[in-house]
């Protein structure tokens, strides 16, 4: 239970960063912290005590294995995470080009 709690705290730290920080790059960093925690949650739910990784080796007996399905899912979500980071960086660079700042409070042509 304490592990889940710590993982959830990590998520909330990321959320805190997104909601309060004003620098575009800080926001992107906080988003990736949130994604780490979401990925960790999935893998933690699949861990089985005293079990081995789900890969067979030649000449070795089949032992009990951890849950491979969450691992497959997390593999996917890591790639998605990189995609969103790249797109956000591209947008941030363009925003800097237009506004000459990374501060979100000064980037405010849209309001209301």
């Amino acid at each position: 239970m304490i592990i889940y709690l710590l993982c959830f705290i990590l998520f909330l730290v990321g959320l805190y960063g997104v909601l309060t920080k004003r620098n575009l790059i800080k926001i992107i960093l906080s988003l990736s912290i949130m994604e780490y925690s979401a990925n960790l949650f999935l893998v933690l739910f699949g861990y089985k005590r005293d079990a081995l990784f789900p890969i067979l080796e030649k000449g070795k007996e089949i032992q009990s294995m951890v849950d491979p399905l969450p691992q497959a899912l997390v593999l996917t979500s890591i790639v998605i995470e990189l995609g969103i980071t790249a797109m956000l960086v591209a947008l941030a660079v363009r925003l800097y080009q237009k506004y000459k700042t990374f501060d979100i409070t000064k980037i405010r042509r849209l309001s209301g």
Partner: protein
Amino acid sequence: MIVPYFIIIPLLAAFLITLISSDDDRWAIVISILAVIILGILSVIGFISVSKEAIVYSMGGWKIPYTVCLVLDPFSSFMLFIIPLIGLAALLYSISYIRHLSKSWKYYALFMLLITGMNGVVITGDLFNLFIFMEVALFAAYSLVAYGGKAEEFEASFKYAVMGSISSSLILIGIGLTYSITSTLTLAKIAEVLPGQNPVVVNWIGAIFLAGFGLKAAIMPFHAWLPDAHSSAPAPISSMLSGVLIKALGIYVLIRLFYNVFGLPKIFSDIFLVLGGISIICASLLAISQWDFKRLLAYSSISQIGFILLALGIGTRMAVFGAIFHILNHAIFKSLLFFNAGTVEMALGTRDLRKMGKLGKVLPITSTTSMIATLSVSGLPPFNGFFSKMIIIIAAIQAGFFQSAIVAVIGSVLTLGYFLKVQRHGFHGEKEFNEITNVPSTGMRTAMIILAILCVCSSVLIIPGIKDVVFDPVIDTIINKTEYIQLVLGR
């Protein structure tokens, strides 16, 4: 088996466009329009063939809970019909509009990826697969919102992307929690296992999914990104986002999860009612104070989504009918209104209602179709908006939710109020225009006329004989939780 082609065709179109196009966008236009037309035909065939029995398709020939399954039932094929319908109109409109902005094949490739994502979300029967295709649609949407290349567009896109990825992380955690207690990802299997689980966890999962998908549907406390994104995007993209995307990614998934999987617990139907009411009233009030045409339309979208959510909260058969009918109607008239806004912006170079004036002479088709759309969205007979809103209000009264009925009536009146403002200042104002620089092209006019005709024609669907054929199977799939489980798990 037609089911996998709903993904294959738009995906193939997107990849082909990227591969063969260089500077020219002619092939891109041909391929994408062809793909959308084929998708439309397929969805009609699908709707006819599934109205008796739905199709479940398992990937790679494996057994169902061990692989991803696709489920084509009347509800999903109904959504699959709306997507290419609005998509075709938007593509016709785009041809000259996008050349006016920045001519590129990338637009069409991203457009096809947007459609792929939405089709994937609508057709899937697997929770994690839904997440992935949602991301495809969202990534395409982020870059299409920024397509205009102006500062505000990047800003709106950044906001949208940040909000979108917060909600994606939330949804991923929700998927993790679901997997931890049910140990499966197939929606039907989850629906079967979930009632026996600890209610605390189940309610938390529901809350997380409501927040995550509510952000995508732009329900009121989670709406902050929508006015920016939908008003900054190019007009055809605004119409796709407002008309289809928030429904396919938001409302459709909410219906699937809370009706078919969770079985609509009382606590969530109450939350739907409250959030729906808040969305209707607050978004309408915010819309009244807007002078930016597209921003006003974006707020109006939030309030119309509120109507759908309210109906879903009521949860009776009639209310669900109102909700899905309103999904169709809102897709049609809101896309038309965004087309109108785009045409006016292109012609006059402004979105400010105060700078517009008498447009009847210079833009006759735009101003006529905008009148039709206005009457439709504000719920005047005989246009389609009237019927869906009336059904929702009647359903509220029948089910004894008088406050909700009153809220819906007030909402309709407010809608009429701010659209009268649009008509009065935007199309019948005092300023005279004799000449305009950018006249709308044939494609743009055709798109507007088609949607305007549909605005009138879709009220035909209310006639009992036609309603029984079109809407009853859809309502049955939404209301019947056990039927969905039996269908997918094959018992």
